[in-house]
């Protein structure tokens, strides 16, 4: 764990740059992380990000399928919003942990 300054805030991040504490997140942080990845955030992006944060706060595991059934976007649209890493990049920008396997 290390501390990184993002959008003027000191936040705790993992080795791979994912926020360790989702409560340290704000829209400015989201915009800056998205900028590093090369994504410009729109309202639609934020709808997805807020959905991911809500489900994570409720301790529900996230899958692409789940987001695809959320009523906000379908899977294809999720890809268009977060190219190359629909769940990975959206999680990073939403300030929640990285989707992983057991090892």
């Amino acid at each position: 764990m290390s501390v990184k300054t993002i959008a003027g805030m000191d936040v705790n991040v993992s080795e791979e740059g994912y926020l360790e504490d989702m409560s340290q997140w704000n829209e400015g942080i989201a915009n800056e992380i998205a900028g590093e990845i090369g994504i410009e955030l729109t309202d639609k992006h934020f709808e997805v990000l807020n959905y991911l944060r809500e489900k994570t706060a409720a301790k529900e595991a996230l899958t692409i399928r789940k987001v695809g059934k959320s009523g906000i976007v379908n899977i294809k649209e999720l890809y268009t919003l977060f190219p190359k890493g629909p769940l990975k990049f959206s999680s990073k920008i939403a300030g929640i942990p990285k989707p992983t396997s057991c090892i």
Partner: protein
Amino acid sequence: MKNLVILGAGTSGTMMANHLVSKLPKKEWEITIVDQYSTHYYQPGFLFLPFDIYTTKQVKKKGKKFIPKGIRYVQDKIEIIKPEVNHVVLEHGEVLAYDILIVATGTKIAPEETEGMKGPKWRENIFDFYTYEGAKALRNKFREWEGGKLAIHITEMPIKCPVAPLEFAFLADSYFKNKGMRDKVDITFVTPLDGAFTKPKATKALHHLLEDKNIKEVTDFNIERVDYENNKIIDYADTEVEYDLLVTVPTNMGDAVMERSGLGDELNYVPTNKGTLQTIDHENIFAIGDATNLPASKAGSVAHFEAEILTENILRYINGEKLKEEFDGHANCFIETGNGKALLIDFNYTHEPVEGTFPFPGVGPLSLLKESRTNHMGKMAFRWIYWNMLIKGVHIPFVSATMTEKGKHFETVQ
């Protein structure tokens, strides 16, 4: 007389039956277990069946053998669960009333969820190894296969035994080496995650295995469809991977009875309290093993640890006591790496797999997160432990339900 009903006589259900039969007073409680199938499979063995390491006989036995006396065993399909009236309705019309229900219906593959997967080429050059039939069909294919592009593919997470596809890749490398045809087989590992290993420590310690074995990785691949006419899998970003032989782990889903009964999430897993194993919506329904939505691995070792805690919580529930929020997501898995070696990993909800020794701190004999022959012997011995101890609910010495930190090298805990 009160009724406790267990749905499913797989690893979890059978363990619960064995735990509870001696704990619940027979004069007050009748225990019933329901399963539609008569065969109990040793599912970890499905990994070895395609490579002729295990025979078909070594991975299946009559399920009834493992259900203790004093428990009613009903072989029928579950039609629907009616939680509002505490009833389970079976396919042939029998209605089971319950005071406590334990859901242990597991998870199964759903290849029909992906376009083109379960089409005309299913079990011709598209295989799974998560079912007995699939593993056996693949064994027959491998025996005669002359080589080409072998794609080992994970459709989407979560899956049962998340590390099995990787073990499959390692064993395939060994298998074709031993057959003297490794140069004719091109192995590619295709995953929706960002690597075959996803945790930083494991990646650092183990990524060399892929390079050493010449296994290619295609990452962040979220399949949209199988183009079975042209032997390609295509993802939502239009990335294509060609194959001659596709070994896929299809979408894993809980039992469809959860959907019919309004008890499941979008993958038919039952929302369950991750510490107590009580379901979120109904206080007299508990869930265990692969059937839950817990953020733990779907694996027999997890179910084994859960069973000890769930048994205690059932007794507490009956006595009107507060449930223990004790389950910590503990998993303990052997990982075959091929050539007679294996790794062992031990982890839980909050701790990544770490290096160290197991089960005795500083002694072992098993080493965590390192390849060794002893670990492989452990994995082979585990089949005996499974049939003779694990599903019978016999406590495995020195292995506790919650994870111990002794003898393990924890660095920064994230």
